[in-house]
């Protein structure tokens, strides 16, 4: 990764050249819409969230809510943990951290299609043809990132995947997608600082010229993202992405895998004040050969990375301010299909959440004896999102408004998950 500033210039010098150029959208252009109805004055909020996104729909019945003995149970055995619950025998390292996290075993949703489920679990809303809702990361970046003027790198980083977008909040809150090595392409302009600043100065004028012709939101968004890019290029905070500078033993602990490096990168970014990081681990769409895949491939990688993250955050005293959420778009069928696989299943499944003051070490809710149904209270995406927002100190009365006038309650008016907060 190349952090070198252009030849013959130290970083401070370079930054001073760029500083003036980063304000691409002047106040005159901050028009068009009011995004936030409830302006809040909060005390300094240091909270952050890390979403461990399990793309494909992980089989929570094999990980967090085992049904030994049932026809649907599969071959895995439950083991005891440091928390008040049992989990899969192939998550032994996580078992030692379960005093820091809780399992919600009564998730029940309706979206069992990947793209719809992905959207729904990321936004708290079902897809709607007329509006695109902001994802978790964009909401948190908008709410917490904007209170951190010192933050020069994006407030929403997605590692090893693209997450979902900012929707009506606009491209300035879109996920900054990086791979797990933290390597960012094309950071270096490679020309003299004088040329850089005269280029940027000219660009700023051209950019405004087009916006002032009433061309709509896309033109304004472009200018905002230009500004953020310039800020980022010149920021010392970019060193947070240099996951390779961590000591060997720390990197070992997280695991020499993309997911492990992603979790470590997430911790570094949160340390650098980034309020939302998503770490992607795919490969959970196990319609066939599920047990072999889980035992030998997915679970060891997950176990090492996820347990290291909880342990490390805790040891550094960061867990009290950092929410960690583990989920995918849905769970998988209790019924084991003819290919020794499990298919999509949204009716009864589990997620894991911990940190940021959420109650640790418990299992909330329960499914019936073969896992096909939730018994008692069920929770859905918006409930989880409301709970996480609450833990992050975000006011659940916050309402977004677009110029179309439609009010959108944060987390879709979800209810708090009882026992988790």
């Amino acid at each position, binding site marked *: 990764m190349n952090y070198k500033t252009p030849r013959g210039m130290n970083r401070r010098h370079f930054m001073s050249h760029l500083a003036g150029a980063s304000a691409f959208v002047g106040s005159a252009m901050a028009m068009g819409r009011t995004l936030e109805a409830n302006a809040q004055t909060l005390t300094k909020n240091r909270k952050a969230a890390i979403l461990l996104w399990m793309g494909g729909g992980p089989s929570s019945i094999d990980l967090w809510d085992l049904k030994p003995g049932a026809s649907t149970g599969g071959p895995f055995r439950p083991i005891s943990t440091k928390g008040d619950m049992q989990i899969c025998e192939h998550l032994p390292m996580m078992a030692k951290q379960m005093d820091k996290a809780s399992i919600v075993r009564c998730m029940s949703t309706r979206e069992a299609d990947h793209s719809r489920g992905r959207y729904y679990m990321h936004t708290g809303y079902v897809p709607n043809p007329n509006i695109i809702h902001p994802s978790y990361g964009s909401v948190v970046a908008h709410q917490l990132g904007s209170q951190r003027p010192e933050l020069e790198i994006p407030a929403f980083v997605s590692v090893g995947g693209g997450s979902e977008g900012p929707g009506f909040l606009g491209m300035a809150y879109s996920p900054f997608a990086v791979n797990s090595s933290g390597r960012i392409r094309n950071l270096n302009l490679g020309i003299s600082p004088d040329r850089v600043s005269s280029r940027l100065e000219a660009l700023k004028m051209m950019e405004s010229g087009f916006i002032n012709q009433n061309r709509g939101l896309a033109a304004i968004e472009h200018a905002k993202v230009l500004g953020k890019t310039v800020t980022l290029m010149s920021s010392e905070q970019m060193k947070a992405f240099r996951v390779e500078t961590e000591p060997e033993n720390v990197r070992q602990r997280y695991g020499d895998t993309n997911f492990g490096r992603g979790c470590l990168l997430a911790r570094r970014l949160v340390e650098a004040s980034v309020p939302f990081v998503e770490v992607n681990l795919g490969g959970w769409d196990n319609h066939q050969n599920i047990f072999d895949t889980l035992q030998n491939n997915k679970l060891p990688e997950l176990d090492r990375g996820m347990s290291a993250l909880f342990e490390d955050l805790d040891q550094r005293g960061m867990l009290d301010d950092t929410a960690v959420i583990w989920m995918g778009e849905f769970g998988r069928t209790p019924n084991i299909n003819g290919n020794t696989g499990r298919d999509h299943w949204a009716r009864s499944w589990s997620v894991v959440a911990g940190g940021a003051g959420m109650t640790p070490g418990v299992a909330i809710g329960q499914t019936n004896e073969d896992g096909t149904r939730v018994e008692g209270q069920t929770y859905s995406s918006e409930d989880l999102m409301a709970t996480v927002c609450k833990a992050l100190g975000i006011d659940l009365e916050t309402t977004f408004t677009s110029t*179309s006038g439609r009010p959108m309650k944060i987390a879709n008016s979800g209810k708090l998950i009882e026992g988790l907060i």
Partner: protein
Amino acid sequence: MRRSHSNIHHFNQFRWLQSKPADRLSADRLSEAKIQLGTRCPVSTVEGVETKASRLRLVLTLCPALTMMLTMFGCSVLHATEPASESSAGVNLPEQVVQIDAMIEEVWDAYELTPSRNASDSEWCRRVFLDLIGRIPSVDEVENFLGDKASTKKQALVERLLYDDAYTEELARNWTTIWSNLLIGRTGGNANGSMINRDGMLKYLRDSFARGKPYDQFAHELITATGSTAPGMDDFNGATNFLIDKVNPEKGSQATAATSRIFLGLQVQCTQCHNHPFNDWKQKKYWEMNAFFRQSRAMRGEMLSSTETSATLGDVNFAGESGNNLDEAEIYYEMRNGLVAAAWPVFVDGTEVDKSGDVSVVNRREKFAELTIASPFFAKAIVNRTWAHFLGYGFTSPIDDLGPHNIPSHRSLLEYLGNEFRGSEFNFRQLLQWIVLSKPYALSSKENRTNKSDDPLLGETPKFSHFYLRQMQAEQLYESLAVTTGGAKKNLSWEQQEEIKNQWLQQFNRAFGNDEGGEATNFNGSIPQVLMMFNSDMIREATGVAEGTLVWDIANSSMSQKQMVDAIFMAGLSRKPTRDEVALAKSLVNANNGNLPQGLSDLWWVILNTNEFILVH
């Protein structure tokens, strides 16, 4: 710079004979024509190439005998110039354009919207080049258009881009890109283990679009394809790449979903596991559609290289899931109540086909293709998709969901265009022409006081009262820049060029790795894209000053400094600079202490990084 137009005049005067929409000749008529015309007509070299109507008229003037002959064949020679009324694009517009304008205007009136003014000629020209052939126009191309004083110049440009040999390759390349992204995704064939041969898919598409293949034939070929995926194999059929990865896993669920979505605009996949939450499609419907794909088998073939595979798609006898019921080959699915039900192929409109699984009795994919093409959804789906390509939004959102629960914003227009498209014998280029020459496509993206609210980003259904800004696709950027980076890539074959482009595009693409083939692109206006536009090797090349680059060409010309600045603006934005921009440009150039190429390079960099450049407006 782009190739000159001089070769326009080198056309073979008889090339129009093949597949000009209004007077498509059958192959046997063509060979009759060949016989009668003698050896002067090199028909063998013209296969599948379309050319413009003006040539037709020219040739007819030159050759009265030919006119007579055509009349004998019953061809309507005059159809190409069928009468119509005037509109924004000039005189003699096809009736379909007039109807589009009228139906769009009705909605404006209903909502009391005053449409924006027409876009300037240079904006319109840039838009048309980007949307039809996938790149911005060169300076020569814009200036030729601006200099044309004819009232029919818009039609002439569209005809040139659609039917002139000089543009056939680029036209085909652009639509190959669009359709490969649709059929196999941007990541299809790039992942390990995939059976898709991307090269094979591209070859098929390129050939189809260069020939101007009728859309029904195109769909039929893709749905029913059998043979090998890889070029060079004996039974190569590139069309197999559409379904090769989709028929085997999960009982062909992706094949069912993708064909229904792409060719019918119907989202059946949600009903796989349960009845549809929003409409009356039942789970049964999904499995009945799925049953059409159960004779199909993909078989992995040999590795051609470390990354490239071959595979074969075919249809085999299917004796039902029970394995012993060839005459009534059934499939089973589990209902939400846990009971198991059986299904046989029934099309979405209720048409049942023979239950036999014997390929010699009934080829189920063949039946599916026939029923698909006969369905009213077939024409509407492609009309909606094509409209969205040009206008930024379709008549429904999402564009590939035409189910009864999703009311189109312009229902009668969608119906009308669907019928007209069918009536044109599915002539795709004609559909493009109707839309591109329409009034809504000609409007400026500048909003006025009454139509600011007409913005789908604000949750409104589109009324098309102004042009909606949208970002260039990564491929459009690539092709637009390729013009200015000099001759390095000029001598490469089409396949090599596509491979280099594909490699470059991979930086933006990501597959979700699930059974829906979901994927995302980073080329979406976010920071990584801006970083790429600021600092990437590609931009460094494009703004370079080496011999053969745009900057070099301009800096070493005899132009005045003002003309040089004009040329840079024309090259990137297809317009001349304003007075303020000239001053800005001059100060930028002068900031480089007399180093003219470097100054122009800075200016070019600035232009490439503006919103005005990257947005289609």
